[in-house]
Structure formats: C-alpha cells, structure tokens
C-alpha cells in the first residue's frame, strides 16, 4: 500500500517522468504561457494558490455560457442549464474516478464545508477533530457548529512542521487514542483533514489519514480545496466520506466553481446551504443542481478549463509545476541562506514554503500582513504571502505553468532585500 502520495503513481498516469516538462526542459511551459493568461507586463504571479487564475480561453468559454443564457433566459434556465451542469459533473467524475451522481457543483470550499457541517445532525457528546493547520474558514465553521449545538466540542491536533508523513499520522492517532482512553461518553464524530493545507502548504499523507480515521469509526471530510489540478485525485481509491475541492484554484476555471463529493449513503441527510424548491424531492441532484437564480457561467467554465489542460495532459502540467516548486524552493532557500519547511519532496505539491531569515520574529512590521502586502505590490509589483509557523517566518510560493526557475531566483532576491531591510531597522 502506498504510504505517500506520489505524483505519478496512480493508475491513470503511465507517462515516464523523464519525458515530461521540467524546469530544465519546460517544453510548452514557462514564460511563453504568459500570453494565455491575463498577467500584465512586468507582473509575475507567485500566489496562484490563494485565488487561482484562468486562461483567456477559459474566460471566452465563460462568456459563451453567459451569452447563451441571455439569448433566451427561460429556455436556458428551464431546459438547457441542467444538462450542461450534468455534463460538467460527468467530466469531473471521470477526472476523479467516482460516480457522477455523487458530485454537486458549488461555489467554493467554504460553501462545501458549510453544506455538510450544517446538514449533519450533531448530538451532545459529539466531537469534531481538526488540525491546527486547517484553514480559517473551516475552523470558524466548526466553531459555529459548536456554538449552535449543546456539548459539541472541538478536538484540535497541534501540527508544527517540519514533520514527516509518518509523524503526522502518528500525532493524530495519538490524540484519538488519548480521547478513547478518557471514556467520558463523548465520541469523535467527524474529522476535517486537509489534503494540501493552505498556510503552511503541506501535502498530507491523505490516504493513510483517511484509512486510519475510518478505522476508528470517524467520518472523514477531506478539505481538498487545493487538490484538483495539483495532484491526481482518485476518489474510489481514497474513499473519503466527504470531499470538497476548488476547480478555480489549480484547474484554471473561473472563480466560483468547486465540486463537492457526497457518497450516496449520506445523500439523504445533506442539503444545500440555501434550501430551494426541490427540498425533499428525493433527489440529491435536483436539490443541488439549482441554487436559485445566479450566473452559472463560472461553474460551466470548468469545461473550458478541462479543454485547455487537455492540450498538455495532466501528467505534464502536474510534473512541471511540482518540479518547479521543489527546485524553485531550493533556489530561494539558497539565496536566503535558509531552508524549506517540508523535510520530504512528496510533501510539496505546487506550493513551497521557504524560511525568511528575519532576525526579530516579533518585528512590528510583520505583526499584520498589511505592511508586506503593500511593500511587495507597490515596490516590487509581485506578491507571495508570508506567515509565522513554529516560531519562524515563512513565505509560500506557488509554482505554475507560466513560471520558470528564473522567476524563483528573482523572488528570492526580492525577499532577501526586503528582509535585509527589516533586519537593518532592528539594529
């Protein structure tokens, strides 16, 4: 059984890695890709991970759907919209190896998480397990559930990188066992687990985690916000209880397009965050395919995104981005005289975390993100988020098909200049 999530190990990927694009041999990728996107001259996007971006062809695809709706809104909404959405689900089901009817298209991960958490029937004594590195909106939603139910509490597992895959699984299992030993009548009902966390960006040993948690009878909701388009997804193999992923992050669709996986066994109890006319129709598909009047073109742009990616193939895109993240991270660490956060390469997808050599971790200018956001954007016309973790200061950099190794070198020098200046202020 694979204990790590190797990029090209799953059954759909058979291309030998030596022939795939890499930082040394970018093939169709690198700066020549810039013209396919919207980036203005002189601006380099190092933070694809936060909000994603999409290609011009994807925007054209979105506008196609937008205009189609306007030609005859009644025909569109009443007759043509659902088949179009079904087609997207069919394509995604193939992409993620699952049943099309176990997928629902939603706006984003926050909505997906709320959909499940606010539908589940939590009882007094239920505990929800999460990791300290989970995303803030997920954490707040779990807090909200606890606030609105009697005796439903959080069990938080502290995760401080660097940790190996094995250590991550071990830490979590230890907390579960400690809880069991208490024998206080409470039960861990659900666990929220990142596939790839946000800050720090760590690719978790997700299969091992899902298996371990399920072995304790705990429902597992995989927050795979960053997964689709960054790592291969096989839901039949992974077998989570729930999973949410943003297509508008790494798949290149327009913002406001995500997909929620709800296996059939749970569908009776899961309802949308906004109940509509098809409530209790007995059909998960009906309940989730119409979210009231809105613009569905962003969701439908998933079609354009998949078309764009097919030109190159998932293997090529994933391999290039991953190798660039790994090598780019190493280069930056070299320039800064520091290290990357993750001890093993398989813990990096397309996002790499490099330590920033700030001398004073309590420097006033890094207490809030504002100063650095303004400085990086206004002075250097770029941005990469920075954050504290485990007593150190890090930056997270997103690789992409429109970047090259030279971009990482440039960013390394920019950060060096910024940090040197901050360090000089101190003394």
């Amino acid at each position, binding site marked *: 059984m694979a204990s790590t999530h190797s990029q090209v190990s799953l059954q759909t990927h058979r291309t030998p890695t030596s022939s795939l694009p890499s930082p040394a041999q970018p093939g169709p990728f690198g700066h020549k890709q810039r013209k396919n*996107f*919207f980036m*203005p001259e002189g601006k380099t*996007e190092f*933070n694809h991970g*936060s*909000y*994603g*971006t*999409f290609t011009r062809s994807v*925007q054209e695809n979105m*506008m196609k759907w*937008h*205009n189609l709706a*306007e*030609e*005859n*809104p*009644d*025909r569109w*909404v*009443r*007759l043509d919209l659902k088949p179009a959405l079904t087609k997207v689900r069919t394509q995604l089901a193939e992409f993620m190896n699952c049943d099309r009817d176990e997928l629902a298209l939603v*706006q*984003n*991960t*926050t*909505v997906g998480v*709320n959909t499940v958490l*606010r539908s589940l029937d939590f009882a007094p004594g239920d505990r929800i397990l999460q990791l300290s590195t989970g*995303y*803030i*909106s997920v*954490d*707040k*939603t779990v*807090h*909200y559930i606890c606030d609105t139910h009697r005796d439903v509490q959080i069990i938080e597992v502290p995760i401080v990188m660097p940790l190996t895959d094995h250590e991550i699984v071990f830490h979590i299992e230890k907390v579960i066992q400690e809880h069991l030993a208490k024998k206080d009548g409470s039960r861990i009902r659900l666990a929220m687990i990142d596939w790839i966390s946000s800050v720090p960006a760590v690719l978790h040993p997700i299969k091992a985690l899902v298996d371990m948690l399920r072995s304790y009878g705990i429902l597992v909701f995989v927050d795979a916000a960053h997964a689709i388009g960054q790592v291969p997804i096989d839901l039949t193999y992974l077998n989570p209880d729930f999973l949410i992923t943003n297509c*508008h992050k790494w798949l290149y669709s*327009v*913002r*406001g397009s995500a997909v929620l996986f709800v296996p059939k066994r749970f569908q009776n109890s899961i*309802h949308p*965050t*906004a*109940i*509509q*006319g*098809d*409530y*209790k129709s007995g059909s998960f598909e009906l309940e989730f395919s119409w*979210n*009231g*009047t*809105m*613009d569905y073109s*962003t969701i439908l742009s998933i079609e354009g995104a998949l078309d764009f990616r097919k030109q190159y193939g998932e293997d090529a895109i994933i391999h290039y981005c991953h190798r660039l993240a790994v090598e780019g991270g190493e280069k930056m660490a070299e320039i800064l005289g520091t290290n990357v956060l993750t001890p093993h390469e398989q813990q990096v997808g397309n996002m790499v975390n490099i330590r920033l050599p700030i001398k004073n971790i309590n420097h006033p200018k890094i207490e809030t993100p504002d100063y650095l*956001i303004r400085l990086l*954007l206004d002075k250097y016309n770029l*941005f990469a988020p920075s954050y504290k973790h485990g007593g150190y200061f890090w930056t997270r950099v997103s690789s992409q098909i429109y970047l090259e190794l030279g971009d990482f070198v440039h960013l390394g020098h920019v950060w060096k200049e910024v940090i040197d200046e901050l360090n000089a202020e101190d003394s």
Partner: protein
Amino acid sequence: MTSAELPTAANPGPFGHQQRKNFLFPENYTQFNHGSFGTFPKVVQDDMRAWHDRVEKNPDLWMRRDLYTALDDIKTQLSEFVNCDMEELALVTNTTVGINTVLRSLRFDPGDRILVLSTGYVSVNQTVRYICDTHTDVKVIEVPITFPISDKDMLTRVEDALKQHKELKDGSKIKLGIVDWISSVPSVVHPVKELVDLLHSYGALVYVDGAHSIGQVPVDLSYLRPDFYITNCHKWLFSVRGSALLYVAKRHQHLIHPTSITGEYSQGFAREFGWAGTQDYSSLMSILSALTFRKQYGEDAIISYTHSLALEGGKAMAKILGTQTLTPDDHHVGNMVNVALPIKDLNHPKANTKALMEILMDKYNVFTPAFRHGDKFYTRVSAQIYLEVQDFVRLGNIWKEVVDELNASA
C-alpha cells in the same frame, strides 16, 4: 418630472422597441418573462466584463483590498436607493440565499410558529419546511389566499389567522411572518406596509420577501420598517444574475450569520457578510452600472412606463382572449400582469406549465409562465422598457391560437 410628463404605454418617450438595441436579445426574440430571471443591458455586461479583466490583472490586490471598497460603494448607493443605513445592508447571491441566511440563523424554540401565505414562493415555503423538519415543535401557519382579493380582505384573512392562533392559548408563539411584497405566480402587489404593521402588532418578526421589488416599485425601508428584507437586483434593476440585497435591522444583526460561515465569523455583521469566500464578484459589481444605466431615465420614468404598459398590455391581451386580468385594481399590478386563459377543460393533459411552455417555445419562440390559480388558468406577462403595447397584442394572439387548439383537442 410631473406625472403628466412621464412615459406611458401611449407615450413611450425613450422606451419601447428603440430600447431593444441596448439589450442582448437576438433579432427574432421578444422577452415577455423578465420577471423570472431578469436580463441586463449590454453596457452592464460590458462593465461586468471590465471588472472581470481588471481583477485578473491583480487578484491579490482585489481580494485583499479593493473588493471591500467596491462593496461599500455599492451598499452606500443602494442605501440611498432604499432609504436605510448602509450598515444594515449585505450583498448576497439571490433571494433564496437571503431567506436561508435569516431563517437558518434565527433561533427557533419548541412552540415557535412561522406564518406564511399560501401564495409565497416555493423556495421560501420549502425553507420554512426545512426549519420545521430540523427543529422540535416548530410549525408553519399557512394563510390560504386566493386572488383576486382586496387589500382589506387579505389583511382580514391574515389577522383572522393571528387571532385564531391567539385563541389557542397553547403556549405557542408566532415568531416570524414572511410576506411577499410582490408575489411570483400569480404576481400581485401586496399591501406590504399594512402587513408589516399588522404582524408587528401581534409581536411577530417580519421578513419581507421583496424579491421582485427593487426597480419595480419605490422602496423605502425607513418607512416600511421590516425586521428583514431581501430583494433581487438582477430582476428589475438590470444587474447581472447573482446580485441581491439583504437588509437586516441593526437590532437583529448579532443573530444573523451567512449561510456559509467564513473566517470572519464573530467579527460583526459588516465583516461577516463582506467576504463570501472566493468567488467571482462581477455580478455584484454590475449593480453599479445598472444604477448608472437607470439614472439616464430616472426611476420615476422607468416605473411609470412599465407599470402603465403592464396595465394597458394586460387589458389588450384580455380583450383578445375574451377574458380578464386577475386583479381588478390597478394598484395590485406592478410590472407584471396575470391574464386569464380561456382553457375549457382544466384537467386537459396539456393544461400544465411544462406542456404549455414547450408549445410556446418550440412553435412561437416566446414564453410566459402559465399556471392554475383558483378555478382558472392564467399567464403572467412582464412589462419592460423594451416592450410596447403591440407586443402584448401579438402575445395575446399567440395565446389565443394555443388555447383554441388545446380546447379543440379535448
């Protein structure tokens, strides 16, 4: 402008077919059903696309900073439009979301009752049903309403239901009443101020489902004083779909959270409703250009024309069909008019919304929803600035043909 100078069906001024070129309709297509999904002018679409492009040049700057300035600007403009404090407003995707936002936030205790009218919108009534399903001893009180009904009779019906409930003396309490400003099918303008006051006088909170109100009737929330109010800008205001306005009176804001909790939970109403997670905010941004488009003519002019056209057009259609409109009183009509269809056999297999829709779309390339209400069939027609009376005449003739054929095939 005095009312004598405002555009009407007889004197369209800047409105009528000359407006078609401002919109996105294909040559051979006439939109008679603006009320369902709305539509927007080309300039609004162009502006939406411009926002889209602008954001893509620097998504970080947008999401972390400029988005909030833009949202505040929209809320400020809308607060002037609906006469309320800007801090009482939140921008959401649509009415369904707005209804769920409040209903799924409010605390309902055993014994609480929710009052609705039978003519309320299906998604609203289903949401109420969901609330009842997920709480112990929370029930719905549905007031049966059949149009036509005078304002006075409607208020009496609602008050009777309130009185009847009071007589029960069973410890239960009507916590919330949900009332339409302008219902959907059939489409009728309700005596909403009186309804709000009546429900308040019985101690109930009031949620006004104003899905159809903004852009169709003047909205003054300081006068109306609901506890909650939702309206779709993408219906009658001409913004892009997925742009609605939620009003939550300050005294209730601490109770109300978005349908999707975000990282801003517990940071106060403005912050909780400012960030809705990563999405395309261009639909909301389009509200600005929609308001600009309308300012060219002024709200009075637009409302005067569309209302007058609904009345005149409805009369013309009823004459052709040999029937009447649903509402005898003009003030019950906003921009939408319900015209009776002379279908002889109410149980005819084709006498249903879906079958009639297919015939209209496939054979005539038009659509107006047909529905049964009381003992008759009606169709609801939406007037708009791009229509004229002759369009209603054409539609009347189409419906006549359709119904004649249906009656003949019994």
